[in-house]
Structure formats: structure tokens, C-alpha cells
């Protein structure tokens, strides 16, 4: 796997895990939040979002559950598992270190 693919993969996982940290969310809500909070710069299409959700669920980092609320159709909500919390904390640290390193490299040099 090239560094670019690995970087995108980890960042996509980090986005999903972060969004289900506070409370369970369904897939469409996750995709809308990513789009809204990034100001439209980042979008997850159906074809990429759900396979990622299923992969994270298979790893045990998130858990999906059908929830039926009164007057609404049932929806599959994803919540962060305890294992997912550890992975999220680790990925956050790694991402923060990566961003800081990139900033240090790319910041303008002052003579």
C-alpha cells in the first residue's frame, strides 16, 4: 500500500470513528456531517462510506444496530466500541503528530 493510500485510509477511518464517538449515528447522518463540517471539501459517497462502515464493524471498532423510533422507519445506528475508542485515541495522536510535522516542514522560513 502506498503512503498516500494508507494516509487516506487512516484519515477516513479517523473521520468515521470521531463522528460516532459522542453518540450513535446512521450512515446518512455521518455522510452529511462530513460534508457539512468540511464545508463541502470532503464527501463520502455511498460506494465508499458503507464498505468502510462494514469494515470497521468487522474489526470490532464500531457496532451497528437497527433502531426503530416511533413514527419513523428503522435505521442502522453505529456506535463506537471500547476497542474503537482505543483505536480512535491512537489514530488521533498519530494524526496530530503527522499534521504538526507537515506544518513544521511546510511553514515559511523567515530570514
Amino acid at each position, binding site marked *: 500500500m502506498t503512503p498516500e493510500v494508507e494516509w487516506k485510509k487512516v484519515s477516513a477511518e479517523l473521520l468515521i470513528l470521531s463522528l460516532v464517538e459522542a453518540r450513535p449515528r446512521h*450512515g446518512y447522518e455521518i455522510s452529511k456531517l462530513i460534508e457539512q463540517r468540511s464545508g463541502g471539501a470532503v464527501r463520502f459517497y*455511498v*460506494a465508499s462510506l*458503507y*464498505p468502510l462502515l*462494514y469494515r470497521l464493524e468487522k474489526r470490532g471498532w464500531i457496532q451497528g444496530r*437497527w433502531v426503530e423510533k416511533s413514527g419513523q422507519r428503522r435505521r442502522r445506528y453505529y456506535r463506537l466500541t471500547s476497542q474503537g475508542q482505543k483505536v480512535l485515541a491512537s489514530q488521533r495522536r498519530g494524526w496530530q503528530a503527522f499534521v504538526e510535522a507537515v506544518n513544521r516542514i511546510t511553514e515559511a522560513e523567515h530570514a
Partner: protein
Amino acid sequence: MPDWREEIARRVSFPKLDSTREIEIIEELSQHLEDRYNELVSGGATEDDARRDVLMELNYEKLLPQGRPGTVHEVPLQPVAAGNRDPNLFASLRQDLRYALRQLQRNPGFALVAIITLAIGIGASTAIFSVIDNVLLEPFPYRDAAHIIYPRIPWRYTRS
């Protein structure tokens, strides 16, 4: 409103997944597409444009690498020109059969009525054919029954 389940079933295959999980995934994806479609329409898009955009989102990229358990991947649709045979006939047939089975599973009442109707239809056709065969086509239980003749002498030759 387009039938999103049908669109998904036509475009996406689910290798190594049991039918229950497959139905759940189709339900989940169809909800997402429906929400997106409603959002586009309420935002001013025409129904045709919204449908096209939503389907494009579904086909945006390969859903996942093939062969990985618990994942899904896209099945490319190959247009077949009129008069030409589908080059992937058996794959298409298998997909149609799986889709038909899924539909029957979703509507057990309809499936039961369809099966009973087919059984009665086949049974009735067989019974009618048996009667016609015995009465009209092969009426006598003799060898070469078709060669048996019924001689008649016209009345004018019998008058002396």
C-alpha cells in the same frame, strides 16, 4: 420515486454474504439513496436529475475489492443491443434467479399465491392434454392406432 432496492440489486453483488445480511445492506443503502434523492429534489433538482446523481453516487467507484468476506462490490452493467445475445448469459441468469428468490423471500404471501397458481395451471394443462391425447389423438390402445381406418360404403353404391 425510483425503486432503490431494485437499482441496488441490479448494480451490486454481495459475495459470501447470507441472504439476511444482504437484505439488511440493501435496506440500509436504499434508505441512504432515498434520503439523498429527497434532499436533491427538495433543493430544486428535477426528479430525473436527482435520480441520475444518486445512481452516479452508487456507481462512483468499486464498492470494495472483490473476495473480501463481508464486503460488497459493484457489478458492471453491460448494455446488450437488440438482437444480440448477452455475452454473460449465465451470470445474468444467476443474478436474475437470485433477485427473484430475494423478492419471493420478501413477500411470502405473494410467493405462495404464485406457486399455487403455477401448480394449478400446470396441473390443469396436463389433465386437459391427457384427455385430448386419449380421446382425439391416440384414441385406441392398439399399435399404430393412426393407421386404423373406418371403411364406409356410400349409400349410392349399395342401391341395386
